[in-house]
């Protein structure tokens, strides 16, 4: 435990620093609270909507997948540190373990669990948006028809 003593000491010093700063700020700073100051920040207007009550389920999936990878990591670390004395068998074990993981991960991706936001449109939306429309072609198609100055010149 002796090795953790300096860490604990630093922890205490850090917390003390925070507490002392608060006390100093309490003594030095003015305290004139008002309703407007304590209202939720909304660029100066009155908040018209409550903060969101619910969040997309994707955040939950990310947290779940993170647990999975965290456990993978904590199994990988002992293997990495003790690789030399463990030998070949442990490598095959790790490979099997990681393969199962990887295939699950592929399934998760295929299922769309890690997709966020709307899909990027690869399909052409309409003729109005296409690669063969260049500035020169567009201008030519509009032509001079209906343009007063052009008609006068003609």
């Amino acid at each position: 435990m002796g090795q953790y003593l300096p860490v604990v000491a630093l922890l205490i010093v850090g917390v003390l620093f925070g507490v002392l700063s608060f006390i100093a700020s309490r003594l030095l700073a003015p305290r004139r609270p008002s309703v407007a100051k304590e209202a939720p920040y909304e660029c100066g207007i009155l908040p018209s909507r409550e903060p969101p009550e619910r969040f997309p389920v994707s955040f939950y999936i990310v947290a779940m997948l993170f647990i999975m990878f965290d456990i993978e990591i904590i199994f990988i670390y002992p293997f990495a540190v003790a690789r030399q004395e463990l030998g070949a068998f442990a490598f095959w074990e790790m490979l099997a373990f990681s393969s199962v993981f990887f295939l699950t991960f592929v399934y998760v991706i295929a299922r769309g669990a890690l997709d966020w936001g709307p899909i990027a449109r690869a399909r052409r939306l309409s003729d109005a948006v296409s690669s063969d429309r260049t500035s020169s072609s567009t201008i030519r198609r509009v032509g001079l028809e209906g343009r007063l100055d052009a008609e006068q010149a003609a």
Partner: protein
Amino acid sequence: MVRLLALDPVAIGDLLWTPLLIIILKVVAIFAIGLLVTMFMVWFERKAIAGMQNRIGPNKAGPWGLLQTLADGIKLFFKEDLLPDRADRFVFKLAPYLAFVPAFLVWSVIPLGGDFSDGKNGIVTWFGEQTRVQLADPPVGILLVLALSSIAVYGIMLAGWSSGSKYPLLGSVRASAQMVSYEAALGLSIATVLLLAGTLSTSGIVANQDGFTNWHVVSTGVVPFIIFLLAATAELNRPPFDLVEAEQELVGGFNTEYSSIRFGLFFLAEFMNTVTMSGIIVTLFWGGPQGLFDIPIIPGAIEGTIWFIAKVLLFLYVYVWFRATLPRFRYDQLMDLGWKILIPMSLGWFMLMAALRLGRDQDWNQAVVAIVSAAVLIVCAGLISMAMKVSRANREREGATF
């Protein structure tokens, strides 16, 4: 007292007066260095970005504006401390500590110097006691950094939640999902380093990197370093991954409702994390205090510190450079980069390195091992890209808008 499992010789055995004094000195020194360096980092960032944008930057307070951060910090003490009336008072007050204290504790495992040449393993003698130029060398080593970064998530998450306001809440949910995602990539890229170093202790990792070809950035084949650098940037919520405080959308992100010194602590934590993360990168991949060549005249112990500072400065500059150059990611791009590229890549690279090392130990033909591994990795990459196509096709069919 039982003999303690330890690598820092000063903390082994009975704590006599001299070791205790050294420990106290170290704690005070680390604390002072931590605050000073963070102050310097804020100045450095402002000055460097100003230079990149053809501005002058802070130049009034002190020589070259060096004391600007101090002035800003003192100003914060005199600002009114607001407690929003919708806030969860206890958690609102707790959150700055959860952000700030872990940032400080990371310092304790970074080797800041020491002579690692000729198998001296970075042990120096102070006042007749052998010790290391690092606050502590606990057996968990680098895991302490991971643990602390998982605590830091709470600071941001709870700060946003407890404010009782919508922008902080949105910012903190984004931030915690982002930090959690990139922590996985971070952890997996560290695994490759551990594979080579064979130890968790940070001083052990540094001792393993004698000579440039043994620096882990070279010997792990650059890829884990790049993954780590990207994941660390995201973990720090620094540009181009600063979606947490995307000003245009979220005002100030998770700390919108914080003012006065509470905000100051978040700010301090953010910049201190930048410095410590650079220190961790240098420790893990760039040899820590190990130098490329001997600097004449200067004794070995100080030389290590000089090398360390030089390398850390390099990475601090890289972070500033990122900030000045790169536009911010979109949230789906951020998640795609983290989950679909960095994580599979770091896992694949780890298995590749493990296979190559195993092949060397077992006297297999290295070329065959490399070819087989490469083939397996290509198949895996193919599987992932197929999975992405399937998902895409499904979503297009659904007209997905979630």
